[in-house]
């Protein structure tokens, strides 16, 4: 077994790695939820808060799937685990997912306090975390070839 093989995505369909395929969906949803939260906080138009609620719900569902695929890669690839950014990438993304789950619950409240201030703050924290883990994840893939098919 070569070192490269041990960096492979073990969660794959027809040699296409699953985690990188799913990962953009929750990222886009959670970034979108921050934007719609900000729009609601500025306008008090319920439409924006409803958008946030949908984005968070879909983001959490797709995030769970992405996390399962990612954890499968991570736990079955000893070499992936040994790369420096892997642990913070996993822990950061899981934290973002858990926070977003609670954020989705906060968004089930009615009207103003479904977003301001708690929901908005949680949305912002998640986007900050995702910016950091996205940076680390890029490093894992583009510099160290983790989860890449060759």
């Amino acid at each position, binding site marked *: 077994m070569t070192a490269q093989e041990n960096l492979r995505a073990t969660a794959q369909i027809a040699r296409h790695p699953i985690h990188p395929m799913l990962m953009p969906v929750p990222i886009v949803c959670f970034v979108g939820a921050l934007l719609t939260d900000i729009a609601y906080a500025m306008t*008090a*138009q*319920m*439409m924006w*808060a*409803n958008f946030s*609620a*949908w984005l968070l*719900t879909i983001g959490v569902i797709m995030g769970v799937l992405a996390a399962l695929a990612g954890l499968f890669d991570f736990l079955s690839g000893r070499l992936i685990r040994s790369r420096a950014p892997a642990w913070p990438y996993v822990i950061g993304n899981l934290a973002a997912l858990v926070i977003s789950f*609670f954020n*989705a*619950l*906060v*968004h*089930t*409240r*009615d*009207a*103003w*306090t*479904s977003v*301001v*201030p*708690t929901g908005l703050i949680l949305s912002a924290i998640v986007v900050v975390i995702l910016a950091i883990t996205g940076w680390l994840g890029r490093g894992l893939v583009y510099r160290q070839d983790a989860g890449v098919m060759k």
Partner: protein
Amino acid sequence: MSARSPQIRRMTGLVLTFSATLALAGCNDGSGDPAAEIGPNPTLPAPQQYLLPPMHIARVVGWKGNETPTVAQGLKIQAMATGLQHPRSIYVLPNGDVLVVESKAPDADPITRPKTIVTRWVESWATSGGDTGPSNRITLLRDADGDGVPETKSVFLDHLNSPFGVALVGNDLYVANTDAIVRYPYKEGETKITEPGTVLTELPGGPIDHHWTKSLVASKDGSLLYVGVGSNSNITENGMEAEKNRADILEVERATGRWRIFASGLRNPNGLTFEPQSGALWTVVNERDELGPDLVPDYMTSVKDGAFYGWPYSYYGQHVDPRVEPQRPDLVAKAIPPDYALSSHVAPLGLVFDTGSNLPQTYRGGAFVGEHGSWNRDKLNGYKVIFVPFSDGKPNGMPQDVVTGFLNSDNQARGRPVGLALDKAGALLVADDVGNTVWRVTSAGG
């Protein structure tokens, strides 16, 4: 509270929501003594906001065999009509005929967010034993000999639009559908109306029609109609535009259909009726949810012309609701507290004063209240008919249970009381929209 600056209020709201976020919703909602929230000066705990609001509705089992509700001492109860389709309110005609309004909610509110899907699913547990058949009609019961067993039962009016309130003035019968007050010609003794109705005035209805029951009563001289229009949301989560002319009692000129807002800030007013001694208009009101098991107490109150009762901006006077934006300190300052709290989440939908002569003397002049029962607290509350004693036109003393046993010992719903009426003999009639029954309560001796 009204004097506080917006910054301080905002800070309080911030602290409140943060602490609530940290406190995970557990199984026990920490509710206090419901009795502390009854009467003219209820104890109001600090509001809390949930991550997961308690959603506990009694599962429906229905009445089996000869089961009946339990009545207070000195009373007896029998079923006057069974097998109805979701009976919600009752109106007694001058000749003693009983009109039972069988009504179903209009098309559900649009799905605006994932929560709508979940709440719809939970609420579907609480409907009467499934979708039972044609409703949205008025059934006439005729009990000429007054023994509580109607000799005839006929469909009086059919194909209505989620009707609730009924009022007769002379030969004009008014039916409050969810979207309009409709007038029908009525001749005494009729068992069926075939003539088409005429719209007197339209009422706030769909496309969103959250609180859809339109309670109706005519003024003593018959010139005015009062109609209750419930809010279009729990607390403005469908947007402020959806609340136009809602959470109000409207006063409608019978001759012209022209109307004005008589009183506002009443979240979901039902059971409109006149107190016999003072002649004042009274209503029972369902207050807001998801602020805690003991908030906000539902209430009954006399309705003052031009008064504002708080919804959505505040409750019980100046208790500001942090969920409403933009806030309106000017309106909050004007808000007046209601007369008499009935405890939180009991969902009062029926109100009638004992003006008859059948029931025991202790009930004379007081109010019966039909409490449909709670969903937003772990310990069920309501699910019974209570009596509130009155003197000099005002509530005087604590309520007494009159009709109970709608829940069985496992807290499953055999029925749920809604609208109330007194029949010609003075017996108390109770519409049970889950048991699909009209119950008749009389004096045990008589």
